[in-house]
Structure formats: C-alpha cells, structure tokens
C-alpha cells in the first residue's frame, strides 16, 4: 500500500498520532528524562531533610510520600520507559526492520504513560496526601492504613502495567518476526537479545503485579481478606506476590543495561564482544533464576527454615551468570585499542560500580547476615549501586553513544566527560557512605536519625546535590547538541562501532530499511 517515502507530519500531530518507531522512541526518552527530573526533585527533598539530624524541613508524613513517589517515579517512570524508548529507536534499526511490528499499539503504549503519572503526581494534592507506604507498598500499610489516594495509585499501576505489557508484546513480535533475512537469532546484537528476554520477563510478571494491586483494591473497598489474618488471609502473602513480580523487575531494569554495555565496550575496544554465546546464555539463565529467588527480600518475615535456605542458595547462584558477564566485558577490553570517550567512560563507571552492587547483593543474599542488613541503609546503598550506577549510567552511555546517529550532530566531548566525572564523584559520595551507616544500624525510610550518623549523612546529601546538579549539564549538552552541535554525516560515527544501525545515513532517516538489508552470512554477530 502506498509509498512511505515522506518525512514526519507537521506540528503537534506528528507526536500525538505518530506510528513511527523513532518518534515514539524519542517521546519515551524525553518523557523518561522528565520523570528522572521529577523523581530527582523528590530525592533532593529527602536528602535535604536528612542533611542534618533532627526534623528540619518536612514533616514525617510528607517525607514518607517523598520516598514512596521517588521510588515509584524512578522505577516505573524514569528507568523502565527510558529503555523502552531505546528499544523503539534501536531494535528495528539493529535487525533491519522497517518499524516495530504493531505501530499503532506502540503509540498507545506510550501515550497512556504521561496521564497515568500526572494522576499519580496529583495525589500529592489530594486529601490524605499521596501514597506513603513505600514503593513496595506492603499490606496492611497500603490497605488498612492507606490514604484514599491509594485507589488512584492502584489504577495507575494497572495502566503502567498495560503499557509495559503492550510494549513488550510489540518487542517480542518485532524481534521474532521482523528480522531481515539472514539475521539469525545468534547474529542479533546483544542489546536486541537482552531486550527480547526482558520482554518475556515483563509479559510474565506485570500481570502478577496487576493481580497484587487488584487484591489490594478488593481488600480496601469490597471486604475481601487476602491480606488480613482475621479473615484467614495473610499480609505476608502480599510480599510473596509483590516480590514474585519485584525480583524479576530488577532484572527487567538491568538486562537492557547489560545489552547497552555489551554494544559500547566492543566499540571502544575495537574488538568484537568476547564470549557472545555465553552472554546470551548468561542472560537467559539470569532471567530464569530471577523467578525463583524472590523471597530473599523476605528473610526476616518468619519463613520456614527450608524456605530461607532455598532462597539463599538460589540467590547466590545468580552471581554465577552475572560473573560470566563481567568477565566477558573485561576480556573484551583485554588488549583492545581502547579509547575513553564519554559513552565508554560511563560504561567503565558501570562496570566498576555495578560489580560493587553485585557484591553487596551477595552479602545481602546470606540469610543470617541479612537479619542485620535488612531494611537498613545498606540495602539502599546496594540497590542504588545497581540501579543508578548500573541502569542509569548505562542509559546515559547509550544517549551519548547513539545521539550523533539520531540527530546528525556531535555532542561536546569535554562537557560529556565533565558530566561523567561529576556524576561519578557525586554518585559515590552519595551512596558509598550509606554502606557504613547501614551496617552501623541506620534504618531506611526514616526522616530523622541518631547523632552518630550525622557526618556520613551530610556527605550523602552533598553528594546527592552534586549528582543532581550534574544532570543539568547533561540536559544542556543534549539540547545544545540537537540545536547547534557540530554536524556529522559519517555513517559510522564511532570507528569501532559495529551493527546495522551504523550502515544507514546519519542522521538516521525517518524511515529506515523499507526493504531489508543484505546480511553477510559470513559476518558474525555485531
């Protein structure tokens, strides 16, 4: 039908009604950045309150709303949509497809997100305030003792889940059905592989989360007793269902990040990825294991000892495929012709800091030790090492790496490197001391603390302000690049980069691969 050799539509309708994977990817990316700023603002309020012991700026109820919204906005609004945006931009270009498999649904997956988050943020102004029960919304805090805004929250979670499920179905259909002839599974770029597996995880666990919030809804409004022992239910049941979703969720967040790093490190090492096959199998093993470790978040709820042991050993097993990955990235660099442009710097930051996060994860996985660490600032340090230095750093690397391809202009390298170093220092200043205060006994989600934690907390807060401020530099650099960056029309912006996306013109035309590219059968994966 018709020919599509035309550019984008004019004005706002281009964005509202688009079916183009690049437009949709761009919207996802900008939206997630907006959420990153919003969630970041909440974090700044948290750190300002914790700058000194004693109650300083906000009252405890509001503090709890801040921690809750910070977590929800960062996980569901910033990190997840940013990687979906990247998937939209890159997967069709990486496998030689004309677009995503189901373009109209693709647009819908995006457009339900902004109003859902608007509704969620608006609960701040509702009677009783915003949800204040933590991003893990444990019952009965989120049922019996919840503010009325919990109902809005529940429906928002449903909408976010719907968006994720539709987005994932689209990615699965695209990867399974739209690869160019000759692009066999084992030739796919690793980013495509990790996203395919992530999409499976999402389709499997988002409905379970929907089930959990539906049970909450029924308990709150219709008198059921899923999470109430008085009726024969159990609040711990909530935690089981939540973490059956929640643990795969943390891999949903990190697997695409693994994919990004596996694209960038080879490019700046000017060597193919070491151990491609083992990377694919490690990703699949991690995904499988992620379904049978959830109760490592619940060691202290009073599980039978057999349960503690099972979940402890299963959790430790995950370190094996994760170790394979770290080993492969390092081996890729071994004897490579290394250069350290901004994307590579962020990948190096990822490599070092994510590994630290993996090690603290291993510490937490030891059930008897976790009785000490659980719900302390040590856990906060752990998951920020994996989620910020892991997922967010790799996302930042991805933006610097592909931005020239997207807009045909080069970013300012000096500014990029400055951004990296300020981020790196700010991040570590924020979260490294949290290991110490956590081990010394400071609980998480608390607006005030004992005097002996004062110095480390002040360091944390200063670090947080530095990290936060460095994002303004990032935003400025990106906008300056788009508006007035040095134009480049080289197809291969980075001389060591491999893959189909580097064979199309720069900037990438509105439609790519309307006829499939030829894949050289002798050429290995990219």
């Amino acid at each position, binding site marked *: 039908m018709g020919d599509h050799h035309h550019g984008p539509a004019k004005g706002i309708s281009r964005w509202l009604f688009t079916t183009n994977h690049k437009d949709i990817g761009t919207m996802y990316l900008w939206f997630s950045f907006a959420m990153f700023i919003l969630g970041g603002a909440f974090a700044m309020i948290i750190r300002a309150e914790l700058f000194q012991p004693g109650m300083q700026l906000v009252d405890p109820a509001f503090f709890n709303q801040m921690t809750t919204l910070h977590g929800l906005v960062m996980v569901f609004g910033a990190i997840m949509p940013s990687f979906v945006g990247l998937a939209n931009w890159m997967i069709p270009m990486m496998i030689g497809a004309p677009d995503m498999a189901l373009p109209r649904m693709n647009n819908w997956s995006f457009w339900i997100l902004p109003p859902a988050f608007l509704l969620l943020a608006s609960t701040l102004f509702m009677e009783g305030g915003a949800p204040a029960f933590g991003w893990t919304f444990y019952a009965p805090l989120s049922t019996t003792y919840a503010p009325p805004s919990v109902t809005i929250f529940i429906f928002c979670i449903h909408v976010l889940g719907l968006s994720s499920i539709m987005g994932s179905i689209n990615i699965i259909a695209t990867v399974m059905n739209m690869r160019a*002839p000759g692009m066999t599974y084992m030739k796919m770029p690793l980013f495509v592989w990790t996203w395919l597996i992530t999409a499976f995880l999402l389709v499997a666990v988002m409905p379970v989360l929907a089930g959990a919030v539906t049970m909450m809804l029924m308990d709150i409004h219709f008198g*059921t007793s899923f999470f109430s022992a008085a009726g*024969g239910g159990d609040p711990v049941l909530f935690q089981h269902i939540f973490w059956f979703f929640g643990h795969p969720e943390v891999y949903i967040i990190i697997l695409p990040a693994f994919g990004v790093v596996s694209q960038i490190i080879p490019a700046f090492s000017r060597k193919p990825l070491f151990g491609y096959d083992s990377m694919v199998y490690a990703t699949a093993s991690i995904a499988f294991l992620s379904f049978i470790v959830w109760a490592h978040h619940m060691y202290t709820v009073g599980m039978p000892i057999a349960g503690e042991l099972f979940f402890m050993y299963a959790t430790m097993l995950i370190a094996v495929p994760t170790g394979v990955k770290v080993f492969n990235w390092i081996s890729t660099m071994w004897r490579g012709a290394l250069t350290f442009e901004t994307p590579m710097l962020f990948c190096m930051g990822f490599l070092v800091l994510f590994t630290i996060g993996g090690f603290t994860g291993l510490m937490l996985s030891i059930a008897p030790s976790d009785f000490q660490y659980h719900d302390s600032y040590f856990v906060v340090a752990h998951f920020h090492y994996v989620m910020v230095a892991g997922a967010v750093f790799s996302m930042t690397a991805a933006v610097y790496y592909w931005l020239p391809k997207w807009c045909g202009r080069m970013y300012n390298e000096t500014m990029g490197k400055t951004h990296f170093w300020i981020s790196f220092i700010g991040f570590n200043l924020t979260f490294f001391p949290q290991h110490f205060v956590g081990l010394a006994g400071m609980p998480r989600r608390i607006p005030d603390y004992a005097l002996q934690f004062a110095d480390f907390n002040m360091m944390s807060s200063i670090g947080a302000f530095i990290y936060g401020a460095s994002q303004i530099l990032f935003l400025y650099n990106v906008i300056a690049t788009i508006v007035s960056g040095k134009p480049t029309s080289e197809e291969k912006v980075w001389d060591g980069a491999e893959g189909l996306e580097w064979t199309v013109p720069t900037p990438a035309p509105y439609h790519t691969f309307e006829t499939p590219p030829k894949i050289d059968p002798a050429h290995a994966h990219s």
Partner: protein
Amino acid sequence: MSNPTSTEYEKYYVPEQSKMAVMATIGLILSIFGAASVMNDKTFGDGITSGSWTILIVGLFWFMAVLFAWFRQAIRENIAGMNSAQLKKSYVLGMFWFIFSEVMFFFAFFGALFYVRTLVGPWLAGEGEGGRMNGLLWEGFEYNWPMALTPQEAVGGAASQPIANNGSFTSAETTMAFSDAAAWYKWLPLWNTIILLSSSFTCHLAHMGILDGNKKKFNLWLGITVALGFIFICVQFYEYYEAYAHFGLTLNSGIYGSTFFMLTGFHGFHVFMGMTMLAIQLMRSLKGHFTADDHFGFEASSWYWHFVDVVWVFLFLFVYIL
C-alpha cells in the same frame, strides 16, 4: 509459516498516522479516574456522587467506541488486502503473548489460593513454624477448607480480639463444594463444566467448518458456542445469587469467599469477553468476512475461548472439588 522473504518485507504495512491511540487513552484515563472516584466515594466519602459515576460511564463508553473503531479499521485494512503474511504473523504473535499475560494474571490468584490453603491456614491454626501467632491472636482457630469459621469468628468476633482486624469476616453457612451425592444433579458447577467443555468442542467444530469453506456449518456451530457461553454466564450468576441469598457466602466471608469470588469472578468476566469476541466473529461471518484461509479474527477469539476453558478446568478442580 515459512520464513519471510524479502518480497514479503516490501509489503509490510506500516500504518499512517492514527488518532486511535490518543483517543483510547482519553477513554482509559476517564474510566480509571471515574472508577477510583466511585470507589473512594463509597469507602471514604459519604456516598457515591453522581459525578463519579458519570465520568466512569462516559469513559467506558468512549473507550469501547474507540476500540470498536480501531478494530473496524484493522479489519478493513485486512479486507483491502494490505496485510502481508508477515503482518498476519505479527498479529498471531501478539495474540499469543497477550493470552500468556492473561495466564500469568490467573497464576497470581491461583498462587494466592495455594499459599493460603497449604501454609497460611495451618499456621493460623498453630501448626508448624509459622504457628506462633495462634496462641497470641487466634486462639482456638481450627483450619479446614472450605473454611468453616474465620479466625476472627473463632475468637468471638472483632470485639474479643481488637487488634489486626480490618473488617468483619463472617464465614458462609454452606460452601460451594460438592456435598450431596444423592442430589449431584443439583450441583451447578458440574453443569457449568459440561457446558463450557462442550462449548470448546463446538468452537472446534466451527473451526473445522470454516477450514472446509463450509460457512453454514461454521455459523451454526459458532452460534451454538456463543449460546453455550451465554448459558454458562447465566448459571454462574444464578450460583452467585444462591451464594449471597441462601448460603451466606459473600466477599466478606473470609479468605474462602475472597478466593472463590475473585477466581470465579475473573474467570466469568473472561468468559464474557470471549463470548463477546465470538459473537462479533459470528456477525462478521454473516457479513461475509471470512474465507477458508483468512479468518484470523475467529482464530484469535477461539484461542482465547480455549484458554478460558482451560482456566475453568483448574478452577473446577481447585476451587470446587479439592
């Protein structure tokens, strides 16, 4: 399906701009905002305001209208021959993974049922490692399934044990389990099982019909399938009526009532959706939409129907029998 060739690629239809997504979003957001307001009015306010209902109803109708237009457009594109074999495969994959996500949704509720029945119940009754609470909170509670007395009732109601109550949970006088062998034919779930299993069979017969190009056979068996689905829903409603009116089994009947109504309720809702989908396919068939080798709308609906049927088998086993 064979591997896609490059000629098929040239035909992959990437639709033009579409207003559907934004329109559907408006309907969806109105619906959820309306639904949340209705519920909050009921639970936290002083009665439901008509404004909340209006938003909910407008939202739902808007949403359904958009879905109708959206599917109509997709169908028209197919009839106009825009859909390559490869695009059709995308639809097949989409439907398959959508059904998989539905499976996982039910998995959450079945998981809750198993967890409660094998672990929580015995713990509340003081057994095993989880049993310490019994002496402190629910002394005298004995566990059996279907639950005869909720823990709250076992200690003499919320008044005699004032903590850890968030409602009043009164168990049913009679449960839905199979009890009277002499009057087995009065046991509705059995009839519903027979009805739903045969409807899967008739649905299959309809499929055989369209594959043979026999429209008459197709319409006949599809019509019977829809009718069976409708009867199932009626029987299910009657069962709910009996539960509420005669057995005292309600959503407030503790965890037995919760799991019973949520599992059968969501299943029933899915039967309703499946029936609606099949009924639409019947109307499409009467308009002459299907041929022996192009009837994906029906195929997708029939997969959904078989899925709903399989869920029922598990329900029958774990909710009613075991």
